[in-house]
């Protein structure tokens, strides 16, 4: 038993064993001495180890497979049937649901809206968040309080934030219109959320309000990882504050920014609560997203096959984008990062 543990720990510490898939770690060829001495015992020990691993991992895996993996597989299955949710699924239609979803302009519009939200979130929140984070990244009075206050919208439920904003944006009687009136700024007759051409932009505005704080907090956290000596060295070389930010701080913030953009992208593809509360996808479906489309199909029209097909398409889009992002952009971070991480593990 003790032998087994020491061998496995020495394997973990040696950087050469970075590919654990190559073989069972119980009998590593490199540390032959102790392993050979304890070979008679390793049968029992490895069996015991396997049981331990199973014991520890099983609850999580069961939960995960039962309530995440299995439902997703079921979604694929339902998506091939015409089914109203009652009785057995008998009406097999193959890929017809997919065809009908992809030909449905309501859904393709929803995809477009999702992508507009993805791009707008990054294009708006990245410069704003970065600018605010750079400005706040200094010793100043009330720093902790400021960070807390900026983060407040992120912690509120989307529903709660959405209800407040919906009240604020009520045409004529809402707070926003009142302020605009006082400033003699004209506002749309049907309100910002009721005017088809403005609704999506308004939703994006509210989403920016909700999630800008997250960007700022993450960027600030990333900035704390930039070593102080770099600033001092740049100072000695006569760099201005602006040059330091552009040439040193922002590039070093790269990994944080790229990961934030990834999270933001996945979130924007899945956005549901805020849209459902603010507009329900309207007016005339101008703010619908893939998620609102599929919930509408599933709950209001009981078209479970259609809804499931839409959900599978949403999942595939998210997966493809995630893999592409991983391969093209995040790869830069993970590869040079590996030696550093190893050191930390030791």
């Amino acid at each position: 038993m003790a032998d087994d543990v020491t061998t496995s720990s020495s394997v973990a510490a040696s950087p050469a064993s970075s590919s654990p898939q190559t073989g069972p770690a119980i009998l590593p060829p490199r540390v032959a001495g102790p392993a050979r001495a304890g070979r008679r015992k390793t049968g029992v020990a490895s069996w015991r180890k396997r049981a331990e691993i199973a014991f520890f991992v099983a609850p999580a895996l069961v939960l995960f497979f039962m309530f995440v993996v299995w439902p997703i597989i079921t979604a694929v299955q339902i998506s091939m049937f015409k089914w109203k949710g009652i009785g057995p699924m008998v009406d097999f239609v193959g890929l017809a649901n997919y065809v009908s979803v992809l030909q449905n302009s309501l859904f393709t519009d929803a995809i477009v809206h999702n992508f507009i939200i993805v791009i707008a979130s990054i294009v708006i929140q990245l410069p704003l968040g970065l600018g605010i984070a750079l400005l706040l990244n200094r010793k100043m009075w009330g720093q902790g309080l400021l960070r807390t206050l900026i983060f407040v919208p992120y912690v509120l439920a989307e529903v709660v934030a959405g209800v407040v904003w919906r009240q604020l944006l009520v045409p004529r009687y809402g707070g926003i219109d009142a302020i605009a009136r006082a400033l003699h700024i004209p506002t749309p007759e049907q309100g910002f959320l009721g005017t088809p051409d403005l609704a999506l932009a308004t939703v994006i505005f509210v989403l920016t309000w909700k999630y800008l704080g997250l960007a700022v907090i993450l960027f600030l956290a990333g900035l704390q990882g930039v070593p102080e000596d770099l600033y001092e060295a740049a100072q000695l070389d006569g760099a201005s504050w602006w040059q330091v930010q552009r040439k040193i701080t922002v590039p070093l913030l790269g990994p944080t920014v790229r990961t934030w953009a990834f999270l933001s992208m996945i979130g924007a593809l899945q956005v549901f609560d805020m849209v459902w509360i603010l507009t329900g996808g309207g007016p005339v479906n101008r703010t619908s997203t893939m998620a609102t489309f599929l919930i509408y199909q599933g709950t209001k029209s009981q078209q479970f096959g259609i809804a499931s097909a839409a959900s599978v398409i949403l999942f595939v889009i998210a997966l493809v984008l995630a893999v592409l992002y991983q391969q093209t952009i995040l790869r830069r971070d993970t590869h040079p990062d590996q030696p550093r991480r190893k050191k930390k593990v030791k």
Partner: protein
Amino acid sequence: MSAPTLTPAATATPVRRSRRFTMKPSTAVVYFIALIVVGFTLGPVIYGVLSGFRTNAQIAENPAGFPSPFVFFNYTGVLTNPSFWRYALNSTGIAVITTALVVICGVMAAYPLARYEFKYREGVFMVFVVGLLFPASVAIIPLFILITQNFHLGNTWIGIALPQAAFALPTTVVILRPFLQALPKELEEAAQLDGASRIGFFWRILLPLSGPGMVTVGVLAFVGSWNAYLLPLLLLGPQNKTLPLGVADFSSEHGSDTAGVFAFTSLAMIPALVFFLAMQKRIVNGLQGAVKG
């Protein structure tokens, strides 16, 4: 917004060797911008809270005014409304069960993934990493069927908590694994020398030491459950609604009672805000961990 204010400050300062503070945009500028940002983020929240202290007549007369006089009946009305307390109780119960499930299953799974060597380790870990991509909305309809028809858990706390915990697991494992990996190897060897088995090591040494990590993932799971809308919307009946559902329903049922809606919404915010203020460091650390992980 910030770029134009930055550039003049930078160009105005000639490049010279000096302390770095002279190069920065002036403190006054920074405070001014910070004030605008805070106004933007807090404005709607403060507006909601203040409007709860007004009458509907006041709001109709001037939607953007201050309460004059302050009235309290909107808030007392909500606080004496038994539905509000039932929603709050449901939210709490569901969040507590979700958090407990996530933390227990998560730390157990993270332990072998962090500190054992075995063949499928990275494979199992990848399952959870890919799980980060699964939005609940994708699985929502099968989940609805699974929970209500197969398990007959529709309209129960546990019926919501189980899927919520399952969807929170990936984040939890991804945050906890590096945390457990960072605990020094020597601890394990010392425990081994003292005759502790690996399960003994887990119970007596690893669990107490990973307290901060577990609090972080616990807070994230709690806040996620507290704010959740979609799953409760589909699974919970009228008696078991959570606060977000209550807020949404109240605002559509009492649409004309603007002040009442604001009072209800403001009170529904409080638990999340208080919890956040108490746990702010942990939440931020956890998100940071997720980004780095």
